[in-house]
């Protein structure tokens, strides 16, 4: 399954970059993330549990690896999640471009979903992935705005 699109952030690429590589932020922006820890500069491990309506997919053990990092422009994120009702694996390429004062993020992800989730839930997969992505991006931009606001305040204070 291919998921791609663009999203515009207020705030410069560097700010978005810092945001995207912060595990606490990733944890907030990936729906259902219960915990996420950095195990290496470019590796994260954690647990996710995505809930859609009555469907509570059991806990997923997730591993996230970042590669091809070109700060603050692009990186590749590889996700590997395994749970009792199936698995999800994928590779997402993220590009950040300055866009009149803000940042334009282009993402292209190739996701694989397998096991029971795929074989019983396919009717919803497309919708679910879109909904999760949307809420994730909204979380990110909220986070970013908070940060920028904070920076703003600290600047004033300084």
């Amino acid at each position, binding site marked *: 399954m291919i998921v791609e699109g663009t999203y515009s952030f207020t705030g410069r690429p560097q700010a978005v970059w810092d945001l995207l590589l912060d595990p606490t932020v990733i944890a907030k922006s990936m729906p259902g993330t219960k915990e996420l820890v950095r195990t290496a500069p470019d590796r994260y491990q954690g647990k996710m549990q995505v809930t859609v309506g009555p469907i509570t997919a*059991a806990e997923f053990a997730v591993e996230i690896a970042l590669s091809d990092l070109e700060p603050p422009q692009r990186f590749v994120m590889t996700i590997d999640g395994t749970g*009792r009702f199936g698995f999800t694996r994928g590779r997402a390429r993220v590009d950040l471009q300055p866009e009149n004062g803000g940042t334009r993020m282009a993402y292209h992800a190739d996701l694989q979903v*397998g*096991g*029971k989730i*795929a*074989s019983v839930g*396919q009717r919803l997969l497309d919708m679910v992935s879109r909904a999760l992505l949307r809420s994730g991006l909204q979380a990110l931009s909220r986070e970013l705005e908070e940060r920028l606001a904070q920076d703003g305040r600290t600047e004033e204070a300084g």
Partner: protein
Amino acid sequence: MTGAAGWIGRSVPRTEDLRLLTGRALFVDDVHLPGLLHVAFLRSDHAHARLRGLDVSAARRRPGVVAVYTAADLGDYWRTGPVLVQPVPVPGVVFHAATQAPLVRDKVRHCGEPLAMVVAESRYVAEDALADMVADLEPLPAVVDLEAALAPGAPLVHESLGTNLAAHAVQRKGDYDAARAAADLVVSRRFRYDRGAAAAIENRGIVASWDPKSEELVVWDTTQAPIPIRNGLAQFLGLRESQVRVIAPFIGGGFGPKIMMYYPEELLLPWASLQLGRPIKWIEDRQENFYATTQERLQIHDAELAVTRDGKILGVRDRFLHDTGAYDPYGLTIPINSQCTLLGLYDVPSYESEFTVVFTNRPIVTPVRGAGRQHGVFVMERLLDFAARGLGLDPVEIRRRNLLPPEAFPHNHQILFQDSAPLVYDSGDYAPLLERAVEMIDYERFKREEQPRARREGRRLGVGLVSYVEGTGIGPYEGARVTVQPSGGVRVVTGVGTQGQGHFTTFAQIVADVLGVDVGGIEVITGDTREFAWGTGTFASRGIVVAGTACHEAALRVRSKAVALAAELLGPGAQDLVFDGGRVSVRGSPDRSIPLAELARRANPLRGAVRPGTEPGLEATAYFGPDRGSTASGIHAMIVEVDPEAAMVAIRRYVVVHDCGRVINPQIVEGQIQGGVAHGIGNAFYEQLVWDENGQLLNASLMDYLLPTALDVPTVEMAHRETPSPLNPLGVKGVGEAGAIPTGAAFAQAVEDALDDPGLEILEIPLSPNRLFELMQAGKGADA
């Protein structure tokens, strides 16, 4: 031979129904035994993966769990299964055998392949324990696309073979290239017939019970072939055949996959019962059924038809790919069926057919109702439609011009059939079939009046009319034992299993006529290896032909025993005897008669002497093995209405004219055909197993795998014609699969006729509304 009673040919209500209608019939899941344990399987979520590790310790610790087994626990019992059907000896045939193992040891080759077996006090607890295990699987790129699978550098389903090619064979007759050169028109197309599930409403199930005291293993199995299972289990477990009893009780539909022998569960349950010394049950659930039970149908054909300007067939060339899934235990049966059935009712002077069987990371493929025949029919019938279009001929007319004439029988097609015998049609009379169907569907008037009128009202009606043959009733053999008991009751025992075909009744009808007794007084026993130990099984529409004939032969032997006895007892002049009403009497003098029961008692003297060589009892066993299969035939015609806005199709009428030789029980035959048509409609418009590029099945439930309902299947209007088969004394041919075979071809022709858009060609099965929408859009694009 038909006795006075004339049971054969009558729609006798089924004797087995009483038990089924009152809930008293025993199905495998109905077997309850003291101390019964229950099984659930941990199955792979991946289609292709290396098994790096599997920790089952937590599952073993769970309260209520009795045992958890992995491949390692099987020790020497870890073996791959046998090739069930040896490849047909076509010259130059290539066949690479690769068969399934009970549990995955190092590599997963399709989703749902079993990794571990949990035995627990209840199925609920067993399923709880599945959540205690997560297999460490290293995903490998999956082999899904048939052409990509054969490309150099493709990932391999079986590394040891060095290729994904499972088999390759070419059969030829005549000189196709010459035919092509001589042709006025050559039409060639690519056809795709996709994968479906057999979807019996009863999933598979096994109950195995090893009794350490009697040292006997009893296995209740949803199998179409109990005797081979008994023999295979004995061999696998190192037991004597006499220690293993396999019972195929009432089976909730078979349709092919329940023939497949030595399914992992079929070996593991008996093995575990021996390990634990307790009875043990596994009932496949619907989810498992979509992975663990064999499937059928994906083939891709590149075919061409060479014809003269007046529509005479000069020759056909077909090259096709056949998906066998991850393993090929069933040999070449399906592709050979496709290859042989393509020739249909037609006189085809030259034929060149080449197939390549491909391993993929999908569940195993074995025959499902039709068993490859519908592919051949779809390809040939579609090619004829396109040739007719090209020549400006009516689709019915081009068929009419190519039918084999009655004097052509027996007709040798000069290629080999699935039973390794030459493909020879035993008998048939095709033109009357065609004309009767044309008349029943009122073809001419539909084309002349109904269709144009509907057009004017903005409605899109279309008609399709196609033909098929079905090779049925193949060997090797079946047997039966008929006994007249001293009570007068008649007992008929045969080895074949039964899954709803009505054997209890039709076998009884055959015997009733020979012995002049009432069908109600005949008890038929099938599918219990303790009752009858020889035979193969119920498949290839062979039950009535092979086992039915064996019943007939056995009954005749009992009859002659009775004649000999009666002649003695009824005194001089008692040669010409009549069997009727359970009595044997001298023709013309009913006062000189004796009940069969009395003869049975006399045949078992308790004192005195008998002549040397005397066989006691009114009992006989007989076997029947035909030289080759008998060929049934028929025509399907349907009228559809297409909603061109919504791309939805509704079937308005469905007509079947068929010839399955002598009909024993018309009502049962009609039921077989109506049911087959429903299956065919499913394949044509509803049923498709959808896989993604990683070999994940995307519709493993009856919510998304669409079986046709009562609103989707019309009542079929039927006519029988009887051209008796010379290959058996009853003159019967099989009928079990006929209905399902040509439906897709008729459907495609009818939908095209309704839409009347020359740019729109239906080259694939199934055709979903979504797909029809795409084709219609593409058509529009072409016009623009």
